[in-house]
Each structure stands twice: as C-alpha cells, then as structure tokens.
C-alpha cells in the first residue's frame, strides 16, 4: 500500500475522523534535504476528530505522530499537521 493510503488507514482506524485531508507535498521539496526520489516524503495532514477534545496541540500531535511512527521512520521526512475538533473546524 502506498504511504498516503497507509496514513489514511491508520488515522481512520484510530481517530474516526469526521474530516481527513492528506496532501502529498513531496514535489515541492525536490532536491531539498530529506527528499526521497520515490516521492511520498512530505505530507500535509488535516485531521478533524472528536478524539482531540480536551487535549492540547502538543498532545494531539504526539498522538498522530505515534500512530504514524513507522511511516515517519521509514519514509516520511516531514509531516505538517493540523489537528482540530469538529467544533474548532466549524
């Protein structure tokens, strides 16, 4: 499975997001440090989920980073994150 789909599957399973946007920004980092010629090295992810309620930004990002630890270690060099509750996203 490609990286974007792995990210989607893991976040969907763990966070049941009401909205999940995964944008592959790898082409914008061509030639930069951490760029992988296979692509799928840089992502922007927006997650809107009830699971974030009552948690600080740092806690939310830690939660997502932990879910994607494998991807971050293997392939993903940069993950830009926006983590919101449905109220905050409204």
């Amino acid at each position, binding site marked *: 499975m490609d990286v974007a789909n792995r990210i989607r599957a893991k976040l969907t399973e763990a966070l049941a997001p009401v909205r999940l946007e995964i944008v592959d920004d790898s082409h914008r980092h061509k030639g930069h440090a951490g760029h992988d010629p296979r692509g799928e090295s840089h992502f922007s992810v927006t997650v809107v989920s009830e699971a974030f309620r009552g948690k600080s930004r*740092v806690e939310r990002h830690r939660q997502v980073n932990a879910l994607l630890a494998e991807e*971050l270690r293997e392939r993903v060099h940069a993950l*830009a994150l*926006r983590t919101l509750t449905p109220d905050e996203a409204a």
Partner: protein
Amino acid sequence: MDTTVSERIRRDITENDVVLFMKGTPVFPQCGFSAAVVQVLNHMGVTFKGVDVLVDPSLRQGIKEFTNWPTIPQLYVKGEFLGGCDIVREMYETGELQESLRAKGIAVEDR
C-alpha cells in the same frame, strides 16, 4: 540517551527564556521549517537562543527523545515545550502565541 546530552538540553532551556532547537542558525537556517519559526519570533521581536542541532548528531537525536517529539524545530519557553513549526505558526496566526509568551513574562512587540 546520553546523560550529558539531556543535561545540556536541560541547561539550555533553564538558563534561557526562549530556546529554539533548529537546523542551522537564526541567521542562516538550514531548513524551511526552522526558518519559519525564526521568522515568527523575529517578527514578534522576541529574543531567543537558537541551538543548531546539525553540529551535533547526539543532540539532533537527543532532543527528539528528550521532548518525545519526532521533528525539528522545537520551541521551548521558560523550560516548557511549546510546539514545533505547525503549532507555532498556528498559535501565531490566532494570537495565542503572543498571549502565551506575554503570560510567561516574555516581551513581545506589537505589530
């Protein structure tokens, strides 16, 4: 993690009000994400210490373990981890960053 590394980090964040662990220096950032946070801090006129993790591989790895945070840059204010690039930018845009710095007694310029 090497205890000398964690001690060094602890000293940095204790002895300086605002510390940015980054790739490169505030004058010559070596990464767009680090540069973005430097830009935000400069724009607010906040005095900070930049720590270049690229000059020391044990620090580059150590800061990730110390903070339990997988990426660099990392911003510490008064010994407390505030966030990485996304969080800093988001908080700056909503005005929370300025508020939170002022609440901790850090001088922030109005722009």
